[in-house]
Protein backbone atom coordinates (compact mmCIF):
# COMPACT_ATOMS: atom_id res chain seq x y z
CA UNK A 1 0.00 0.00 0.00
CA UNK A 2 1.36 3.45 -0.89
CA UNK A 3 2.35 6.00 1.69
CA UNK A 4 -0.46 8.31 0.68
CA UNK A 5 -3.05 5.61 1.01
CA UNK A 6 -1.71 4.83 4.46
CA UNK A 7 -1.82 8.41 5.54
CA UNK A 8 -5.24 9.46 4.39
CA UNK A 9 -8.21 8.02 6.20
CA UNK A 10 -11.71 8.79 5.12
CA UNK A 11 -13.80 9.80 8.12
CA UNK A 12 -16.43 7.17 8.86
CA UNK A 13 -19.88 8.02 10.13
CA UNK A 14 -21.00 7.05 13.63
CA UNK A 15 -23.34 4.41 12.22
CA UNK A 16 -20.52 2.82 10.21
CA UNK A 17 -18.29 2.93 13.27
CA UNK A 18 -20.87 1.22 15.48
CA UNK A 19 -21.56 -1.37 12.78
CA UNK A 20 -17.85 -2.22 12.58
CA UNK A 21 -17.45 -2.35 16.32
CA UNK A 22 -20.46 -4.55 16.93
CA UNK A 23 -19.41 -6.96 14.18
CA UNK A 24 -16.25 -7.81 16.15
CA UNK A 25 -17.36 -9.59 19.37
CA UNK A 26 -14.27 -8.46 21.31
CA UNK A 27 -14.79 -4.84 20.33
CA UNK A 28 -18.51 -5.15 21.11
CA UNK A 29 -17.71 -6.45 24.60
CA UNK A 30 -15.20 -3.62 25.04
CA UNK A 31 -17.72 -1.04 23.87
CA UNK A 32 -20.31 -2.51 26.25
CA UNK A 33 -17.97 -2.28 29.26
CA UNK A 34 -16.90 1.28 28.41
CA UNK A 35 -20.53 2.37 27.86
CA UNK A 36 -21.44 0.83 31.23
CA UNK A 37 -18.69 2.80 32.96
CA UNK A 38 -19.76 5.95 31.10
CA UNK A 39 -23.40 5.47 32.17
CA UNK A 40 -22.24 5.02 35.78
CA UNK A 41 -20.15 8.18 35.57
CA UNK A 42 -22.80 10.34 33.90
CA UNK A 43 -25.81 9.04 35.79
CA UNK A 44 -24.22 8.57 39.22
CA UNK A 45 -26.80 10.59 41.20
CA UNK A 46 -29.64 8.69 39.46
CA UNK A 47 -28.14 5.20 39.66
CA UNK A 48 -26.41 5.20 43.06
CA UNK A 49 -28.68 3.95 45.84
CA UNK A 50 -27.16 6.25 48.49
CA UNK A 51 -25.19 9.49 48.75
CA UNK A 52 -21.45 8.76 48.33
CA UNK A 53 -20.48 10.11 51.75
CA UNK A 54 -23.60 9.00 53.64
CA UNK A 55 -22.36 7.14 56.75
CA UNK A 56 -24.46 4.32 58.15
CA UNK A 57 -22.84 3.72 61.51
CA UNK A 58 -25.18 0.81 62.28
CA UNK A 59 -23.93 -1.09 59.24
CA UNK A 60 -20.18 -0.54 59.25
CA UNK A 61 -18.11 -3.16 57.39
CA UNK A 62 -21.26 -5.12 56.55
CA UNK A 63 -20.91 -7.77 53.82
CA UNK A 64 -22.90 -7.63 50.56
CA UNK A 65 -26.62 -7.76 51.32
CA UNK A 66 -29.99 -6.74 49.84
CA UNK A 67 -29.64 -3.27 51.40
CA UNK A 68 -25.99 -2.83 50.34
CA UNK A 69 -25.34 -4.97 47.25
CA UNK A 70 -21.56 -4.64 47.47
CA UNK A 71 -21.35 -4.15 51.25
CA UNK A 72 -20.26 -1.11 53.26
CA UNK A 73 -16.92 0.33 54.38
CA UNK A 74 -15.65 1.16 57.88
CA UNK A 75 -17.86 4.26 58.03
CA UNK A 76 -20.91 2.40 56.76
CA UNK A 77 -20.72 4.07 53.34
CA UNK A 78 -22.25 2.04 50.51
CA UNK A 79 -19.50 0.47 48.36
CA UNK A 80 -21.66 0.28 45.21
CA UNK A 81 -22.49 3.98 45.50
CA UNK A 82 -18.85 4.92 45.91
CA UNK A 83 -17.84 2.73 42.97
CA UNK A 84 -20.46 4.45 40.78
CA UNK A 85 -19.22 7.89 41.89
CA UNK A 86 -15.62 6.67 41.55
CA UNK A 87 -16.32 6.04 37.86
CA UNK A 88 -16.81 9.81 37.50
CA UNK A 89 -13.35 10.57 38.85
CA UNK A 90 -11.59 7.80 36.94
CA UNK A 91 -13.20 8.56 33.59
CA UNK A 92 -12.89 12.32 34.11
CA UNK A 93 -9.16 12.05 34.83
CA UNK A 94 -8.70 9.50 32.03
CA UNK A 95 -10.46 11.60 29.40
CA UNK A 96 -9.10 14.98 30.45
CA UNK A 97 -5.49 13.84 30.77
CA UNK A 98 -5.59 12.12 27.37
CA UNK A 99 -7.25 15.15 25.73
CA UNK A 100 -4.66 17.52 27.23
CA UNK A 101 -1.81 15.20 26.20
CA UNK A 102 -3.33 14.73 22.72
CA UNK A 103 -3.78 18.47 22.11
CA UNK A 104 -0.31 19.42 23.32
CA UNK A 105 1.47 16.32 21.96
CA UNK A 106 -0.19 16.49 18.53
CA UNK A 107 0.63 20.20 18.31
CA UNK A 108 4.27 19.56 19.13
CA UNK A 109 4.49 16.58 16.76
CA UNK A 110 2.83 18.57 13.98
CA UNK A 111 5.27 21.45 14.35
CA UNK A 112 8.28 19.11 14.68
CA UNK A 113 7.31 17.06 11.62
CA UNK A 114 6.45 20.04 9.42
CA UNK A 115 9.36 22.37 10.19
CA UNK A 116 12.04 19.71 10.71
CA UNK A 117 15.66 20.75 11.41
CA UNK A 118 16.43 22.28 14.81
CA UNK A 119 12.74 22.72 15.72
CA UNK A 120 12.22 18.99 15.29
CA UNK A 121 15.49 18.14 17.07
CA UNK A 122 14.62 20.36 20.04
CA UNK A 123 11.06 19.11 20.44
CA UNK A 124 11.81 15.43 19.91
CA UNK A 125 14.86 15.38 22.22
CA UNK A 126 12.69 16.97 24.91
CA UNK A 127 10.15 14.20 24.31
CA UNK A 128 12.95 11.61 24.55
CA UNK A 129 13.83 12.99 27.96
CA UNK A 130 10.23 12.60 29.19
CA UNK A 131 10.32 9.06 27.77
CA UNK A 132 13.49 8.38 29.76
CA UNK A 133 11.46 8.19 32.96
CA UNK A 134 9.29 5.22 33.91
CA UNK A 135 5.81 6.71 33.45
CA UNK A 136 4.45 5.94 36.92
CA UNK A 137 7.54 7.33 38.60
CA UNK A 138 7.36 10.57 36.63
CA UNK A 139 3.64 10.98 37.37
CA UNK A 140 4.39 10.27 41.02
CA UNK A 141 7.23 12.79 41.15
CA UNK A 142 5.12 15.51 39.51
CA UNK A 143 2.16 15.04 41.87
CA UNK A 144 4.53 14.77 44.83
CA UNK A 145 6.10 18.10 44.00
CA UNK A 146 2.92 19.96 42.96
CA UNK A 147 0.87 18.47 45.79
CA UNK A 148 -1.75 15.71 45.75
CA UNK A 149 -4.94 16.80 43.97
CA UNK A 150 -7.17 15.82 41.08
CA UNK A 151 -5.90 18.67 38.88
CA UNK A 152 -2.27 17.78 39.48
CA UNK A 153 -3.02 14.11 38.76
CA UNK A 154 -4.51 15.14 35.38
CA UNK A 155 -1.47 17.28 34.65
CA UNK A 156 0.98 14.55 35.67
CA UNK A 157 -0.71 11.88 33.54
CA UNK A 158 -0.91 14.29 30.59
CA UNK A 159 2.83 15.05 30.81
CA UNK A 160 3.65 11.34 30.91
CA UNK A 161 1.58 10.67 27.77
CA UNK A 162 2.72 13.76 25.86
CA UNK A 163 5.66 12.11 24.01
CA UNK A 164 3.50 9.29 22.68
CA UNK A 165 1.20 11.71 20.85
CA UNK A 166 4.14 13.86 19.74
CA UNK A 167 5.88 10.85 18.16
CA UNK A 168 2.75 9.58 16.41
CA UNK A 169 1.84 13.07 15.11
CA UNK A 170 5.40 13.76 13.94
CA UNK A 171 5.67 10.45 12.09
CA UNK A 172 2.34 11.01 10.32
CA UNK A 173 3.19 14.65 9.52
CA UNK A 174 6.44 13.56 7.88
CA UNK A 175 4.41 11.40 5.50
CA UNK A 176 1.57 13.84 4.82
CA UNK A 177 3.71 16.98 4.30
CA UNK A 178 5.25 15.43 1.15
CA UNK A 179 1.91 14.72 -0.49
CA UNK A 180 0.77 16.64 -3.57
CA UNK A 181 -2.18 18.42 -2.01
CA UNK A 182 0.08 19.91 0.70
CA UNK A 183 2.61 20.95 -1.95
CA UNK A 184 -0.27 22.52 -3.91
CA UNK A 185 -1.43 24.59 -0.95
CA UNK A 186 2.12 25.75 -0.31
CA UNK A 187 2.49 26.72 -3.98
CA UNK A 188 -0.79 28.63 -3.83
CA UNK A 189 0.62 30.70 -0.96
CA UNK A 190 -1.57 29.48 1.88
CA UNK A 191 -0.35 30.45 5.34
CA UNK A 192 1.59 27.85 7.33
CA UNK A 193 -1.01 27.82 10.12
CA UNK A 194 -3.73 27.11 7.55
CA UNK A 195 -1.74 24.25 6.00
CA UNK A 196 -0.96 22.74 9.40
CA UNK A 197 -4.42 23.01 10.90
CA UNK A 198 -6.73 22.59 7.92
CA UNK A 199 -4.76 20.29 5.64
CA UNK A 200 -2.26 18.20 7.60
CA UNK A 201 -4.06 17.91 10.94
CA UNK A 202 -7.24 16.25 9.60
CA UNK A 203 -5.07 13.68 7.82
CA UNK A 204 -3.07 12.67 10.86
CA UNK A 205 -5.99 12.47 13.27
CA UNK A 206 -6.95 8.80 12.83
CA UNK A 207 -3.78 7.30 14.39
CA UNK A 208 -3.86 10.00 17.07
CA UNK A 209 -7.41 8.97 17.99
CA UNK A 210 -6.45 5.27 18.05
CA UNK A 211 -3.48 6.13 20.26
CA UNK A 212 -5.79 8.14 22.49
CA UNK A 213 -8.12 5.19 22.94
CA UNK A 214 -5.20 2.95 23.90
CA UNK A 215 -3.72 5.52 26.29
CA UNK A 216 -7.10 6.16 27.91
CA UNK A 217 -6.84 2.72 29.55
CA UNK A 218 -3.34 3.37 30.82
CA UNK A 219 -4.43 6.83 32.07
CA UNK A 220 -7.15 5.18 34.17
CA UNK A 221 -4.60 2.75 35.61
CA UNK A 222 -2.09 5.53 36.34
CA UNK A 223 -4.83 7.55 38.07
CA UNK A 224 -5.68 4.51 40.17
CA UNK A 225 -1.99 4.11 41.11
CA UNK A 226 -1.77 7.75 42.16
CA UNK A 227 -5.01 7.54 44.16
CA UNK A 228 -3.90 4.25 45.70
CA UNK A 229 -0.68 5.90 46.86
CA UNK A 230 -2.67 8.85 48.22
CA UNK A 231 -1.54 11.30 45.53
CA UNK A 232 -4.72 11.58 43.45
CA UNK A 233 -8.09 13.04 44.41
CA UNK A 234 -8.25 13.41 48.17
CA UNK A 235 -10.90 11.93 50.50
CA UNK A 236 -13.83 12.18 50.85
CA UNK A 237 -13.93 12.18 47.00
CA UNK A 238 -14.46 8.57 45.98
CA UNK A 239 -11.97 7.13 43.52
CA UNK A 240 -11.40 3.46 42.79
CA UNK A 241 -7.75 3.82 43.78
CA UNK A 242 -8.34 5.49 47.16
CA UNK A 243 -11.09 2.95 47.93
CA UNK A 244 -8.49 0.21 47.46
CA UNK A 245 -5.97 2.12 49.55
CA UNK A 246 -8.55 2.28 52.31
CA UNK A 247 -9.34 -1.45 51.90
CA UNK A 248 -5.78 -2.56 52.70
CA UNK A 249 -6.41 -2.06 56.41
CA UNK A 250 -9.53 -4.25 56.41
CA UNK A 251 -8.56 -7.15 54.17
CA UNK A 252 -9.28 -9.82 56.73
CA UNK A 253 -12.57 -8.41 58.05
CA UNK A 254 -13.96 -6.97 54.80
CA UNK A 255 -12.36 -8.42 51.64
CA UNK A 256 -15.21 -6.97 49.50
CA UNK A 257 -13.72 -3.52 50.05
CA UNK A 258 -10.71 -4.62 48.02
CA UNK A 259 -12.48 -6.88 45.54
CA UNK A 260 -15.12 -4.60 44.01
CA UNK A 261 -13.23 -1.32 43.37
CA UNK A 262 -10.39 -3.35 41.84
CA UNK A 263 -12.88 -5.22 39.67
CA UNK A 264 -14.30 -1.86 38.51
CA UNK A 265 -10.83 -0.69 37.39
CA UNK A 266 -10.11 -4.05 35.77
CA UNK A 267 -13.37 -4.25 33.80
CA UNK A 268 -13.18 -0.64 32.61
CA UNK A 269 -9.56 -1.00 31.49
CA UNK A 270 -10.34 -4.37 29.88
CA UNK A 271 -13.19 -2.68 28.00
CA UNK A 272 -10.88 0.12 26.82
CA UNK A 273 -8.22 -2.36 25.69
CA UNK A 274 -10.74 -4.48 23.78
CA UNK A 275 -12.20 -1.36 22.18
CA UNK A 276 -8.73 -0.01 21.43
CA UNK A 277 -7.77 -3.28 19.70
CA UNK A 278 -10.98 -3.07 17.68
CA UNK A 279 -10.33 0.56 16.71
CA UNK A 280 -6.77 -0.28 15.68
CA UNK A 281 -8.01 -3.14 13.49
CA UNK A 282 -10.53 -0.75 11.95
CA UNK A 283 -8.27 2.24 11.31
CA UNK A 284 -4.80 0.79 10.86
CA UNK A 285 -4.61 -0.92 7.47
CA UNK A 286 -1.14 -2.31 8.29
CA UNK A 287 -2.77 -4.67 10.80
Amino acid at each position, binding site marked *: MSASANAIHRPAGMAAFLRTMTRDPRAALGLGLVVLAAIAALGAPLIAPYAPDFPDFVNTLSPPSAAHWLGTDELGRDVLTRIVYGARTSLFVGILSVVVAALAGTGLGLVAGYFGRWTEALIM*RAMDVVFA*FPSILLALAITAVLGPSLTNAVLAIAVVNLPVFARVARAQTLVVRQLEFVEAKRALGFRTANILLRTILPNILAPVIVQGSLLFASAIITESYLSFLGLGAQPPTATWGNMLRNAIGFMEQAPWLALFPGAAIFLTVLGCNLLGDGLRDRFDPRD
Partner: protein
Amino acid sequence: MARYLLARLIALVPILLGTSVVAFFLIRLVPGDPAIALLGLDADPQAIAALRQQLALDQPIVIQYVTWIGHIFAGDFGRSVQGGRPVLPLLLGALGPTALLAAAALAISLAIAIPAGIVAATRRNTSADYAASFLALCGLSMPSFWLGVLLILAFSIYWPILPASGYVSLTADPLEHLRHLVLPALTLGAALAAATMRMTRATMLEVLRSDYVRTARAKGLPRRRVVWGHALRNARIPIVTLHGIQLGQLLGGVVVTETVFSWPGIGKLTVDAIFARDYPVVQGAVLLTAVAFVLINLATDLVYTVLDPRVRLS
Protein backbone atom coordinates in the same frame (compact mmCIF):
# COMPACT_ATOMS: atom_id res chain seq x y z
CA MET B 1 30.60 -3.54 17.86
CA ALA B 2 32.83 -1.00 19.65
CA ARG B 3 31.84 1.70 17.16
CA TYR B 4 28.15 0.84 17.61
CA LEU B 5 28.51 0.96 21.39
CA LEU B 6 30.29 4.31 21.20
CA ALA B 7 27.56 5.75 18.95
CA ARG B 8 24.86 4.56 21.36
CA LEU B 9 26.73 5.98 24.35
CA ILE B 10 27.12 9.36 22.63
CA ALA B 11 23.41 9.36 21.84
CA LEU B 12 22.72 8.82 25.56
CA VAL B 13 24.51 12.01 26.65
CA PRO B 14 21.70 14.49 25.81
CA ILE B 15 19.10 12.14 27.30
CA LEU B 16 21.02 11.79 30.56
CA LEU B 17 21.60 15.53 30.60
CA GLY B 18 17.86 16.06 30.09
CA THR B 19 16.93 13.66 32.90
CA SER B 20 19.29 15.46 35.25
CA VAL B 21 17.66 18.79 34.30
CA VAL B 22 14.20 17.33 35.07
CA ALA B 23 15.42 15.95 38.42
CA PHE B 24 17.05 19.32 39.21
CA PHE B 25 13.87 21.25 38.46
CA LEU B 26 11.73 18.90 40.57
CA ILE B 27 12.91 20.65 43.71
CA ARG B 28 12.51 24.05 42.05
CA LEU B 29 8.84 23.25 41.38
CA VAL B 30 8.13 22.82 45.09
CA PRO B 31 6.42 26.04 46.20
CA GLY B 32 8.72 28.18 48.36
CA ASP B 33 12.43 28.15 49.07
CA PRO B 34 14.30 25.07 47.68
CA ALA B 35 16.63 25.14 50.70
CA ILE B 36 13.64 24.76 53.04
CA ALA B 37 12.24 22.03 50.77
CA LEU B 38 15.55 20.18 51.04
CA LEU B 39 16.11 20.62 54.78
CA GLY B 40 12.52 20.53 56.00
CA LEU B 41 10.31 23.16 57.59
CA ASP B 42 11.84 22.70 61.04
CA ALA B 43 15.40 23.28 59.90
CA ASP B 44 17.73 25.67 61.65
CA PRO B 45 17.84 29.10 59.86
CA GLN B 46 21.65 28.97 59.88
CA ALA B 47 21.62 25.57 58.17
CA ILE B 48 19.16 26.91 55.59
CA ALA B 49 21.43 29.91 54.94
CA ALA B 50 24.45 27.61 54.62
CA LEU B 51 22.64 25.35 52.18
CA ARG B 52 21.48 28.34 50.12
CA GLN B 53 25.12 29.31 49.75
CA GLN B 54 26.25 25.74 49.07
CA LEU B 55 23.64 25.30 46.32
CA ALA B 56 24.35 28.76 44.91
CA LEU B 57 20.67 29.67 45.22
CA ASP B 58 21.51 33.37 44.93
CA GLN B 59 23.17 32.70 41.56
CA PRO B 60 21.51 32.39 38.11
CA ILE B 61 19.71 29.09 37.49
CA VAL B 62 22.43 27.78 35.13
CA ILE B 63 25.09 28.21 37.83
CA GLN B 64 22.76 26.48 40.32
CA TYR B 65 22.40 23.52 37.94
CA VAL B 66 26.15 23.29 37.32
CA THR B 67 26.79 23.40 41.09
CA TRP B 68 24.19 20.70 41.70
CA ILE B 69 25.40 18.37 38.94
CA GLY B 70 28.96 18.84 40.25
CA HIS B 71 27.80 17.54 43.63
CA ILE B 72 26.01 14.61 41.97
CA PHE B 73 29.16 13.60 40.05
CA ALA B 74 31.05 13.76 43.34
CA GLY B 75 28.51 11.30 44.80
CA ASP B 76 26.85 13.96 46.94
CA PHE B 77 23.08 13.56 46.50
CA GLY B 78 22.41 15.66 49.60
CA ARG B 79 21.13 14.54 52.97
CA SER B 80 17.83 13.02 53.95
CA VAL B 81 15.49 15.36 55.82
CA GLN B 82 14.71 12.46 58.15
CA GLY B 83 17.79 11.84 60.30
CA GLY B 84 20.22 13.69 58.09
CA ARG B 85 21.75 10.56 56.54
CA PRO B 86 23.44 10.95 53.15
CA VAL B 87 21.02 10.08 50.34
CA LEU B 88 23.34 7.98 48.17
CA PRO B 89 23.90 5.12 50.68
CA LEU B 90 20.13 5.09 51.32
CA LEU B 91 19.46 4.69 47.60
CA LEU B 92 22.16 2.06 47.11
CA GLY B 93 20.87 0.12 50.11
CA ALA B 94 17.39 0.01 48.57
CA LEU B 95 18.68 -1.00 45.14
CA GLY B 96 19.52 -4.56 46.24
CA PRO B 97 15.97 -5.59 47.26
CA THR B 98 14.55 -3.92 44.13
CA ALA B 99 17.06 -5.71 41.87
CA LEU B 100 16.17 -9.07 43.47
CA LEU B 101 12.47 -8.40 43.05
CA ALA B 102 12.90 -7.27 39.43
CA ALA B 103 15.04 -10.31 38.59
CA ALA B 104 12.47 -12.68 40.09
CA ALA B 105 9.63 -10.92 38.25
CA LEU B 106 11.58 -11.13 35.01
CA ALA B 107 12.22 -14.86 35.47
CA ILE B 108 8.56 -15.53 36.26
CA SER B 109 7.36 -13.50 33.29
CA LEU B 110 9.67 -15.29 30.84
CA ALA B 111 8.74 -18.70 32.25
CA ILE B 112 5.05 -17.92 31.65
CA ALA B 113 5.11 -15.76 28.54
CA ILE B 114 7.41 -17.60 26.13
CA PRO B 115 5.76 -21.07 26.37
CA ALA B 116 2.26 -19.52 26.45
CA GLY B 117 3.02 -17.32 23.42
CA ILE B 118 4.45 -20.25 21.47
CA VAL B 119 1.49 -22.48 22.31
CA ALA B 120 -0.93 -19.73 21.29
CA ALA B 121 0.89 -19.21 17.97
CA THR B 122 1.35 -22.87 17.07
CA ARG B 123 -2.27 -23.66 17.97
CA ARG B 124 -3.77 -20.54 16.44
CA ASN B 125 -7.55 -20.15 16.69
CA THR B 126 -7.90 -23.08 19.11
CA SER B 127 -9.26 -22.86 22.64
CA ALA B 128 -5.65 -22.84 23.96
CA ASP B 129 -4.91 -19.75 21.84
CA TYR B 130 -8.12 -17.97 22.91
CA ALA B 131 -7.49 -18.78 26.59
CA ALA B 132 -3.85 -17.61 26.52
CA SER B 133 -4.72 -14.43 24.58
CA PHE B 134 -7.63 -13.59 26.88
CA LEU B 135 -5.51 -14.17 30.00
CA ALA B 136 -2.82 -11.92 28.55
CA LEU B 137 -5.36 -9.18 27.92
CA CYS B 138 -6.64 -9.59 31.49
CA GLY B 139 -3.06 -9.32 32.75
CA LEU B 140 -2.61 -6.08 30.83
CA SER B 141 -5.88 -4.67 32.14
CA MET B 142 -5.32 -5.51 35.79
CA PRO B 143 -3.71 -2.85 37.99
CA SER B 144 -0.76 -4.56 39.65
CA PHE B 145 -1.71 -3.45 43.16
CA TRP B 146 -5.10 -5.15 42.78
CA LEU B 147 -3.45 -8.38 41.68
CA GLY B 148 -1.19 -8.01 44.72
CA VAL B 149 -4.23 -7.58 46.97
CA LEU B 150 -5.93 -10.63 45.40
CA LEU B 151 -2.79 -12.73 45.94
CA ILE B 152 -2.60 -11.60 49.58
CA LEU B 153 -6.28 -12.48 50.07
CA ALA B 154 -5.75 -15.92 48.52
CA PHE B 155 -2.33 -16.98 49.83
CA SER B 156 -1.93 -15.03 53.06
CA ILE B 157 -5.45 -14.78 54.45
CA TYR B 158 -7.66 -17.62 53.15
CA TRP B 159 -4.87 -20.12 52.59
CA PRO B 160 -2.09 -18.74 54.79
CA ILE B 161 0.99 -20.29 53.24
CA LEU B 162 2.91 -17.15 52.26
CA PRO B 163 3.62 -13.91 54.16
CA ALA B 164 1.54 -10.89 53.13
CA SER B 165 4.35 -8.38 53.53
CA GLY B 166 7.85 -7.74 54.82
CA TYR B 167 11.37 -8.64 53.80
CA VAL B 168 14.03 -11.05 55.03
CA SER B 169 17.55 -10.66 53.72
CA LEU B 170 18.76 -13.37 51.35
CA THR B 171 21.92 -13.89 53.39
CA ALA B 172 20.06 -14.04 56.74
CA ASP B 173 17.56 -16.75 55.75
CA PRO B 174 17.37 -17.77 52.06
CA LEU B 175 14.16 -19.80 52.45
CA GLU B 176 12.29 -17.04 54.26
CA HIS B 177 13.61 -14.59 51.69
CA LEU B 178 12.10 -16.70 48.93
CA ARG B 179 8.78 -17.03 50.77
CA HIS B 180 8.57 -13.25 51.09
CA LEU B 181 9.59 -12.80 47.46
CA VAL B 182 6.93 -15.03 45.83
CA LEU B 183 3.86 -12.77 46.00
CA PRO B 184 5.50 -9.45 45.03
CA ALA B 185 7.43 -11.17 42.22
CA LEU B 186 4.25 -12.80 40.90
CA THR B 187 2.46 -9.45 41.06
CA LEU B 188 5.16 -7.67 39.06
CA GLY B 189 5.84 -10.61 36.75
CA ALA B 190 2.20 -11.06 35.69
CA ALA B 191 1.91 -7.69 33.91
CA LEU B 192 5.29 -8.22 32.28
CA ALA B 193 4.26 -11.71 31.17
CA ALA B 194 1.03 -10.45 29.60
CA ALA B 195 2.72 -8.01 27.22
CA THR B 196 5.54 -10.43 26.40
CA MET B 197 3.11 -13.26 25.67
CA ARG B 198 1.21 -11.10 23.17
CA MET B 199 4.45 -10.12 21.46
CA THR B 200 5.71 -13.73 21.41
CA ARG B 201 2.47 -14.91 19.84
CA ALA B 202 2.44 -12.17 17.19
CA THR B 203 6.10 -12.61 16.28
CA MET B 204 5.96 -16.40 16.21
CA LEU B 205 2.90 -16.28 13.93
CA GLU B 206 4.88 -14.16 11.49
CA VAL B 207 8.01 -16.29 11.68
CA LEU B 208 6.11 -19.57 11.35
CA ARG B 209 4.78 -18.32 7.99
CA SER B 210 8.27 -17.61 6.62
CA ASP B 211 9.95 -19.63 3.89
CA TYR B 212 12.80 -21.01 5.97
CA VAL B 213 10.38 -22.51 8.47
CA ARG B 214 8.44 -24.07 5.61
CA THR B 215 11.74 -25.49 4.30
CA ALA B 216 12.66 -26.88 7.70
CA ARG B 217 9.26 -28.58 7.89
CA ALA B 218 9.61 -29.90 4.34
CA LYS B 219 12.95 -31.40 5.27
CA GLY B 220 11.09 -33.45 7.84
CA LEU B 221 12.55 -31.84 10.98
CA PRO B 222 10.58 -32.60 14.13
CA ARG B 223 7.97 -29.92 14.91
CA ARG B 224 9.52 -29.20 18.31
CA ARG B 225 12.91 -28.46 16.68
CA VAL B 226 11.36 -26.27 14.00
CA VAL B 227 9.49 -24.20 16.57
CA TRP B 228 12.02 -23.96 19.40
CA GLY B 229 15.24 -24.27 17.40
CA HIS B 230 14.49 -22.36 14.19
CA ALA B 231 11.45 -20.13 14.58
CA LEU B 232 12.07 -18.90 18.14
CA ARG B 233 15.65 -17.94 17.25
CA ASN B 234 14.43 -15.25 14.84
CA ALA B 235 11.43 -14.29 16.95
CA ARG B 236 13.69 -13.34 19.86
CA ILE B 237 14.56 -9.82 18.71
CA PRO B 238 11.16 -8.12 19.05
CA ILE B 239 10.52 -10.15 22.21
CA VAL B 240 13.80 -8.98 23.76
CA THR B 241 13.08 -5.39 22.68
CA LEU B 242 9.66 -5.39 24.27
CA HIS B 243 10.96 -7.14 27.36
CA GLY B 244 13.66 -4.49 27.72
CA ILE B 245 11.10 -1.70 27.48
CA GLN B 246 8.83 -3.54 29.90
CA LEU B 247 11.71 -4.10 32.29
CA GLY B 248 12.32 -0.36 32.31
CA GLN B 249 8.64 0.29 33.03
CA LEU B 250 8.90 -2.34 35.77
CA LEU B 251 11.15 0.13 37.61
CA GLY B 252 8.03 2.30 37.86
CA GLY B 253 5.82 -0.68 38.73
CA VAL B 254 7.95 -1.54 41.75
CA VAL B 255 6.81 1.70 43.37
CA VAL B 256 3.30 0.34 43.86
CA THR B 257 4.18 -3.32 44.38
CA GLU B 258 6.81 -2.55 47.01
CA THR B 259 4.31 -0.31 48.81
CA VAL B 260 1.65 -3.06 48.86
CA PHE B 261 4.08 -5.70 50.14
CA SER B 262 6.24 -3.40 52.34
CA TRP B 263 9.28 -4.48 50.31
CA PRO B 264 12.16 -2.15 51.29
CA GLY B 265 13.30 -1.28 47.78
CA ILE B 266 13.74 1.93 45.85
CA GLY B 267 9.98 2.19 45.16
CA LYS B 268 8.94 2.08 48.80
CA LEU B 269 11.78 4.43 49.69
CA THR B 270 10.45 6.91 47.10
CA VAL B 271 6.85 6.71 48.32
CA ASP B 272 7.89 7.03 51.98
CA ALA B 273 10.08 10.00 51.05
CA ILE B 274 7.19 11.67 49.21
CA PHE B 275 4.97 11.47 52.28
CA ALA B 276 7.76 12.66 54.56
CA ARG B 277 8.42 15.55 52.10
CA ASP B 278 11.98 14.26 51.99
CA TYR B 279 12.77 15.92 48.65
CA PRO B 280 16.49 15.09 48.49
CA VAL B 281 15.58 11.38 48.59
CA VAL B 282 12.77 11.86 46.04
CA GLN B 283 15.14 13.75 43.73
CA GLY B 284 17.90 11.15 44.11
CA ALA B 285 15.52 8.23 43.57
CA VAL B 286 14.00 9.83 40.46
CA LEU B 287 17.44 10.54 38.99
CA LEU B 288 18.82 7.10 39.81
CA THR B 289 15.74 5.30 38.43
CA ALA B 290 15.78 7.36 35.23
CA VAL B 291 19.47 6.59 34.69
CA ALA B 292 18.81 2.89 35.34
CA PHE B 293 15.89 3.05 32.86
CA VAL B 294 18.10 4.60 30.16
CA LEU B 295 20.87 2.05 30.79
CA ILE B 296 18.39 -0.85 30.60
CA ASN B 297 17.25 0.46 27.22
CA LEU B 298 20.90 0.63 26.12
CA ALA B 299 21.48 -2.92 27.37
CA THR B 300 18.41 -4.04 25.40
CA ASP B 301 19.87 -2.47 22.25
CA LEU B 302 23.16 -4.22 22.85
CA VAL B 303 21.53 -7.59 23.50
CA TYR B 304 19.74 -7.55 20.20
CA THR B 305 22.87 -6.66 18.30
CA VAL B 306 24.26 -9.87 19.75
CA LEU B 307 21.11 -11.81 18.86
CA ASP B 308 20.94 -10.34 15.35
CA PRO B 309 24.18 -9.02 13.80
CA ARG B 310 22.13 -7.38 11.01
CA VAL B 311 21.07 -4.65 13.48
CA ARG B 312 24.70 -3.80 14.18
CA LEU B 313 25.68 -3.81 10.53
CA SER B 314 22.84 -1.51 9.49
